[in-house]
Structures are given as structure tokens and as C-alpha cells.
């Protein structure tokens, strides 16, 4: 499945209608994305893009123009999620070390 087809699939899933895509024009932008981040990463970025609710309304031109910024934002989020998981463990240990009941009782 090509990037444009995958985009149409995700858009239809989220909004319940097929997007209007000028394939003749956008295929060049999609090719640039694949050249830059490879095909699998392009699809993963599209997955991430459709978790966002901005004024862009998940438009294809916005994605094609901002995929690099989206990659940075996604990586930052993943890193922050990893940090939070680590901190949850450490905090639990800290509270236990301080002799506090962690069950909230």
C-alpha cells in the first residue's frame, strides 16, 4: 500500500469519509517523504499524525510540508513516555524507601 493510499485509509477511519487528494500533484511530495524517512517510517509518521487534533485537520498538504517536524515531535513524545515510565518506577521506590504506604490508604 503506497503512502497516499495509507493516508486515505487513515483519514477515512478517523473522519468517516474519503479525503479529496490530488494524487497527480501529491505523489511528488509523498515520494520526498519516503526518500527522506523510508516507507515504513512514513507510514508510522502518518499513524502518529492521525493521533493529533490540530487546526490542520489532518490534511495531506500539511503532512507533506511538516513531516520532519512531526518526526521530531513524535520522537520527543516517545522519549518523554519512556522517561515517565522510568520515573514511575523510581518514584514508587522512593516513596517505599521513605516508608510511606503507596497503596493510597
Amino acid at each position, binding site marked *: 500500500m503506497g503512502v497516499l493510499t495509507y493516508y486515505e485509509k487513515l483519514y477515512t477511519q478517523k473522519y468517516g469519509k474519503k479525503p479529496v487528494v490530488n494524487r497527480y500533484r501529491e505523489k511528488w511530495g509523498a515520494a520526498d517523504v519516503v526518500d527522506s524517512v523510508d516507507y515504513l517510517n512514513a507510514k508510522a509518521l502518518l499513524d502518529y499524525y492521525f493521533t493529533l487534533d*490540530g487546526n490542520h485537520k489532518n490534511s495531506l498538504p500539511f503532512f507533506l510540508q511538516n513531516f520532519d517536524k512531526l518526526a521530531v515531535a513524535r520522537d520527543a*513524545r516517545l522519549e518523554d513516555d519512556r522517561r515517565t515510565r522510568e520515573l514511575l518506577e523510581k518514584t514508587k521506590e522512593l516513596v517505599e524507601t521513605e516508608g510511606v504506604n503507596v497503596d493510597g490508604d
Partner: protein
Amino acid sequence: MSTEIDVISAVLENKDINPALAQNLDECFVTHGDMWESVKRYYKIYGTTPSPDKLRSKHPEFRESDVSGPTQYYVDQLKSGYLNNTLGNLLIGGIHDLKGSAPSEVLARMQKEMTGLARLTNSVKDLNITDYENAGRYYDDLRSLTEEMGGTPGIRTGFKALDAAYPTGLAPGHLIVLIGWPGRGKSWISEYLMCQAWMQGHRPMIISLEMSPEDMRNRIYTLMGSGIFRMSDFQKGMVNTDDFRSWGKKTLTDKPEFIIVSNEGVGEVTPDIIQAKIDQYKPSIVVADYHQLLTDNGRSKQPTERNMNISRELKRLALSNNIPVIDITAATMDDISDTKGPPMLSQVAWSKAIEYDADMAMAIHHHQDTNLVECVERKNRHGPSFAFYLEADFGRGTLKETYGTADGS
């Protein structure tokens, strides 16, 4: 009557200790140092000054003087008198020393003592860290305060994780920043913290620029009730007023005031106006809800400059009033913003100011369609990084602390 008694009387009469605390006056109290220590200790524990009778119960010899001016006036009088006496003694001592010592030695000694006195001529606080005797006295005082406050020198938050990772508690002079996307639980958490402070005997003040004071009162009653009330019942007036009055009498009578200040959505509120409210109500902790709705004292037009100024001005409020200030701030949304998780510090336009000014910054994020509120440290000047979750029932005002993750793992 001595100027020391005048200062203590003014502090008690005006219920205004901050001009005296801000000036490092301790060494000026020569004959009534024990009374002054008692007043300071009482203020640190209870967030207000004792009544004259309360002070007399510990110091029967205390007789208040007839004071009618602001505390600052009597502070200036005490400083001036102390400087006058000490400088006079220093000069006389210098003349006497000249008879038996080399002029260079006398000059060096006088310079050292004069440098110490110069502390009282400005409001900049100096600390010589090689003076371990002074440090020892400070630690003795702090330990005793910590013990009297139940384990932390500041206000305990009621969150086990936060109390463990932020061992000072919400301490005087601290600026605590709560960051979050709009509508994700920042205000609710701050109100919970204020309820905790109030239950410990402190006097909270919330500057509410977003919600009406009545709406905020509904939420605070719901939190205070911890499951007794429903927020929605308050919003509809569907409460049994006899039961409510009975609860109010039992819960709210003879307790510290809990003040909500609102501009009702109109009129600018600056840190200077907050200072006026602090002067009026003498709170022991202040929440500014929220940052973007404040105006800086200089009324800057550029948003980033304005917000950086507000951050700095709130920090000054905390330091000059010797109270903790909580600054609630919304992260800056753009089209790339991922609002599914708690905002990072870089997602606040004036994050540099927060990095400089805040003692602690915490991101708060209520995960949509769940009862989970994620709380993650973004800066902690006084302890380790931390994260925890709250299972919150917003409608009932109850919560439980957990250490799982939003996806249940």
C-alpha cells in the same frame, strides 16, 4: 518603651511580619530576641502572627506598645537605632584600640565589623558560608521547624510521591509552576493542594481569573467533602442546606480563612494587585490561576516578554512575602502539538523563565475518557525527578495515588 517592642507590637497589631522578615532583623533584637523568635516561629507554623495574649502566654513580661503606623516604619526605626548604637560603640572602641594596637590592625577590625553592619543598610541578603556557627544555628532552627510542621519545613502536599521527592514541601519563597494543556486538571490539582494547606492550618488565597468565585467555591467544597458532596449538586443548588450548614459548622468554623479573589473576567490583574491582596489577607500560600490571564506590572505588549516578566514578578512575590506561590500555566499549542500526553517544558513559550525562576515545575495531564491524571516533574530544584498518577473522581472530589501507567501497565 523600646523600639524592639514597637516592632513586635506593630507586627502583631498589623498582622504584617514580612517587612521585618525581609530585612534580616534578627541581630537588631538585643533585649527581646526570645520574643521575636517566638513570633517568627508562630508565623512559620501557623502562617499568621500570634495575638498579644498568645505571645504573653509564653512571655508574660510582654506589654504591647501603642503603635499606629505601618510595620515598615517601626522596622526602619529599629534598624536606625541599632546602627546608631553599634556604629557609635565601634568608633569609641576603635579610638580605645588605637592606644594599644597598630592603626592597620584597628582599621582591619573596624572594616570587618562595618561590613557586617552594611547588611542592614540594604535589602540584599548576604551569607558567608564559612561562618559555620551561623549555619549551625540556621539548621537548628530549621530542624525544630521541620519537626513542628510534621516532617517538612514547608506545606505538605498530601501526595506521597511529591512529599518524598520535594522534601522542603511548599516552602516560603518557592515558586511552583503547574503546566498543562487547557482543561486537563491543572486548576483542580492546585485546588486540592490548597485544601491540603488549609487542612494543615494554613491560609490559602486563590487568584481565580478563569472561573467565577462561586464555581471555584463549589469545587473546593467538593474537595473538602472528599466524597460527601457531588460537584453537580452544588452547581444546581441541589444540596440539603440543613445538612450543608451542619457540615459547614463542623468543618469550617474556627478554621483559617480560605480566600478566593476573582476579577470576574474583567479588569487587569497584575502581580502588584496580587501584592495588594496579600497585604489585605496575609495568606500563607497563593495560587495564580492562571498565568496567561495575568498582566505584568510593566504591561508589556509582547506576549513572551509579558509572560517572562510575570514569571519573575511572581517569584519576587514569593520571596518578598516569604510565602509559596503556585503559578498555573497553559502550554503553548500549535499545529504540531501533541496534546495526548503531558506537555514538556519546551512546549511553554517562556520555558527559559520557568527554568530560571521555578523551584519546581510539574506537568499535569488528565487523560481524556479516563479517570487518570498524570503528574510528571519538569524541574525540581530541591529533590529528584518524579512521576505519579492520580485516579481522580472530579465529580466527588476524591483521588487515589498510583504508580501504574496510562495504558494500565
